[in-house]
């Protein structure tokens, strides 16, 4: 399965390549602007082609991500999917209150994290041991905040608030709170 690390790597390569090309293009344009030569008008056709290209690009980005990033369809349709496990978590007074000290998950289980806040707006994110992010969502008081995630490989993940909730919020980290292990025969 495509996991968030692969998606982030893909984005890094794609955006870096684009940034290099556009910087070189503007540099080339700046040099050409000052050079002697016949001034030719830009054709209207090129302009319309460019507008068409931007339109296709803007729309196709979302179609591509919907069809290639596995968590997008499951996120939009999560109310229709039966999770293998549900963890109800509450947040209040800048603390996560977990249903157990460690949240144990089997590989390939679909897990629903149902997080509610009793006071402020917080964030709920899972981070790998190298501090990279697996996923996150906002936790808004007075509303249902749930996210469905399928863990495709074993690992330990820390929970961290990803939204600013005042200076106290910086310490909202529960180290290695989620542990994903290879499925055992039950």
């Amino acid at each position, binding site marked *: 399965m495509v996991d968030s690390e692969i998606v982030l790597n893909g984005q890094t390569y794609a955006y870096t390549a684009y940034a290099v090309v556009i910087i070189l293009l503007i540099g080339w344009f*700046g040099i050409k602007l000052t050079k*002697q030569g016949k001034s030719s008008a830009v054709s209207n056709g090129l302009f319309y082609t460019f507008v068409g290209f931007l339109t296709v690009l803007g729309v196709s980005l*979302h179609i591509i991500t919907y069809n290639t990033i596995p968590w997008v369809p499951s996120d939009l349709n999560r109310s229709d999917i039966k999770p293998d496990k549900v963890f109800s978590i509450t947040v209040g007074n800048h603390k996560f209150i977990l249903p157990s000290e460690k949240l144990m998950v089997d590989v390939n289980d679909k897990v629903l994290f149902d997080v509610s806040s009793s006071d402020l707006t917080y964030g709920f994110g899972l981070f790998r041991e190298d501090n990279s992010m697996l996923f*996150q969502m906002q936790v808004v008081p007075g509303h249902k905040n749930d996210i469905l995630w399928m863990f495709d490989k074993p690992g330990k993940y820390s929970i961290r608030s990803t939204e600013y909730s005042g200076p106290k919020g910086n310490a909202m980290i529960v180290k290695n709170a989620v542990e994903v292990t290879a499925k055992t025969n039950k």
Partner: protein
Amino acid sequence: MTFKDTFLNGEQGLFKPASLTPMQKLVLRFVVVGLLYYAFAVVEGMIMRIYQIEPITSIPDYQYYAILTAHPLVGIFGATYSLVFGAFLFLVPFLMKKPLWSFKLAHWTFLLVTIGTFTFWFAGFISHFAPLYTLYWPLPADFTQFSPLGGTFFVLGIALVMVGTVFFVINVFKTIAYTPEGWEKQPAGALLGSALGLSGLKNLFRKKEDKKEHLVSLPVAAIARGTVDTAFNAGIILFTGVLILVYMIAHLFGQDLKHTAVDALLYKNWFWWGLDLIADGLVLIFVAGTWYLLATLITGKKLFMENWARAALFVEMVVSWTVWSHHLLSDQAQPGILKVMSGEMVTAFELITQGLAFFITLATLWSARPLQMTNPLKFLLGGLLGFALAVPAGIMQADIGLNRILHNTQWIIGPHVHVAVLVGLTMTLYSAVYTLFPIVTNGAKLYSQKLATFHFWAHLIGGIGMGAFMGMAGLKGMLRRAIYFDGEFNLYMILAGLCGTLLLLAFLAFFINIVMSVGLKGVIGIFTPSKLNAKDLLPAESK
């Protein structure tokens, strides 16, 4: 001239404050204050850059977050609003070829923005009021963390800026529509219709022979449309400020109001709708209008595809009213339809409208080659590059899939926000400053071209570099509003800090260049009253 003479009297003694009209002096006051607040924002930015490498022990975390709260507000309201309002209060009458509707009101705008910015900055500095600019409910009313008295003064400062903004809005629209004394009656409705794009819209449904001419120039139309968003935004911020103020004042009088009386998600939608009118509205529209104006001034040629440019400005205005949901893609209670339609699809239109403005500006410049690489041209190209980098970065994060792993990371604030603001917006503003400098100073000469060239390269490399390294840290999971104590992302933060230093040096080079161009006496002279007619934009003999 000796260095001392130049420092006191400006380059070749050409800048004569006594020759300035009240309007020219007012514009220059806006510029001085704008640059002063820009310096505030740069210093605050550098403190935060150092803090991200190694938390500074003499600055506690609550002070850090107070800086984080003040930094964007000082940058946007104190610096950018001052520069933009000053420039547009001059350009609208200049381009409409009639006096500003009210010089007094413009002066009030200047005072309110200046005093208001200082008030909220100082209140934050003293009281450490730090709910950030996002003000997610009920954080600004959490009095276990923040002082309600400090917050009251903070909100009051913002309110002063907003009242100054409302005065600016009134002045712009009145100037477009009013009939100056002794003039033939002006068609107020038709002028406003043209400025807002309604006449252009009606033209789409008229036969070719019935199509009506545009009554206002394209840059004025851009200013008018951006000003609509400015007005809505001021209304939303004022209303939100009053709401927070009610909770604060009640608490000060010993009555704690229930936080649950305000729905946190509804509030978030409401506030982002208004806040996005800046980020995805007036900034993009004002910038596009400024690009068009600069391109025509630099080339002396007609704008390429002018009708498309007008239409795009109108579309951008409407788009800016409907894109806010891309800030709520990680809010699970936000309806899916809003995430897809407003958050993804409508937001993608910004790629089209801003891409169109990018293309039209480049095509206009191309039609006039060969051009000399002047300061306005090179900064304009820098501004275009800034948005060419920052808009696609924004479109990527405005995607349900990618937002799940990008929201609130350094990616958002680096390659998107800082590259858009520092490289795209600020370099466009610098281009305008270099263009308008000889006009509003009655021919003062720039002190050093070498300093201007250093300013350009240091700002460009510093701005793009800082955004890039912040972005790389974001892709590795670094959050934008967290403090890291164990050097988890130090490599990226050190590199971003070095680029931030380049930005600071660039600003110092620009500041020294401007002070040496007009001289210390000139700077003081800007703040003394003018004896010329307040209705004149330029001295009578130079018109």
